[in-house]
């Protein structure tokens, strides 16, 4: 087979897809990335620039202070030349501006939720709904917290119809894989629907 799709990625044949993992602080983002990644979770640091500090709340902080924000990421190689990259988004609200860069060109997102602190994932849900980035809500089932079904969570979060809610165990590789599969399936459906919209 020599049929190459050269129209979208120019001269390169390698394709990298980006998936974001978002959610409140301590909900298991790093754990999920680590469970499915084939490389040890790497951390990359972004040094806040002056532009960032306009957004960042620097009240009472010396102007010269620079902050580093760590982002976890992992990789899954589907085949040579096709890889998935997972990015754990910075948990604190004041680093929202970093999300915009991460979200650029992302295939979709996983919003991790803990039913004991469901409100922690509201900002992430809002963010992706607003930008029409396909996402699934993955409820990390901490022991003794498994008292709600997917439907309850969907209602409590007031999700748009069709947004998948998956129960998962962020520590478990198979469970994490299932979450990603549901996301890619959903992203495909959203993408197709939009193409049809733009044609009709």
């Amino acid at each position: 087979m020599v049929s190459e799709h050269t129209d979208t990625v120019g001269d390169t044949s390698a394709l990298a897809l980006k998936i974001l993992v978002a959610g409140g602080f301590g909900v298991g983002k790093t754990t999920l990335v680590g469970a499915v990644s084939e490389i040890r979770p790497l951390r990359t640091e972004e040094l806040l620039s002056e532009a960032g500090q306009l957004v960042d709340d620097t009240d009472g902080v010396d102007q010269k202070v620079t902050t580093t924000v760590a982002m976890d990421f992992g990789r899954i190689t589907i085949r040579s030349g096709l890889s998935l990259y997972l990015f754990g988004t910075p948990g604190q609200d004041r680093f929202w501006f970093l999300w915009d860069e991460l979200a650029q060109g992302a295939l979709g997102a996983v919003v991790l939720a803990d039913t004991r602190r469901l409100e922690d994932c509201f900002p992430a849900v809002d963010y992706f709904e607003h930008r029409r980035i396909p996402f699934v809500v993955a409820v990390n089932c901490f022991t003794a917290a498994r008292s709600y079904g997917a439907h309850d969570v969907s209602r409590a979060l007031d999700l748009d119809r069709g947004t998948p809610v998956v129960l998962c165990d962020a520590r478990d590789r198979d469970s994490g894989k299932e979450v990603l599969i549901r996301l890619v399936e959903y992203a495909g459906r959203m993408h197709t629907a939009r193409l049809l919209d733009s044609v009709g």
Partner: protein
Amino acid sequence: MTENPTGEPREPGSQWYDGEAGPLVRPYAMTGGRTQPGPTGVRFDLIALVTLDPAAPALDDDTALGPEHRTLIDLCRPETQSVAELAADADLPVGVLRVLLGDLLELGCVTISRPVPPAHLPDERILREVIEGLRAL
């Protein structure tokens, strides 16, 4: 390394620092004070892929490249690397890495793929391939 191994009295400015004190070379020193990549002005995405051109003449030119450039070249030698991986492996902030990659691009040492624009999300065939690949893991 929190103690002065020589045991001599400390003179001002000669203190030893431990790892928590952070890097002693400030990021701007590695980029020669620059905060933006060169004239190409491209802001490389975190998943942009960096491929080394082993035949690039600049690779043999010791004057053009700093130690951090060399580190990046060495990391790219075995296989194509994403910007995010390079930042983590070279232990450089992404902003610094982007400037250094801009240098390597200008010198023709590397090629850097553009990420797929959102309007051109991968076609169904690729997505199916991803799903099957995930199942097979």
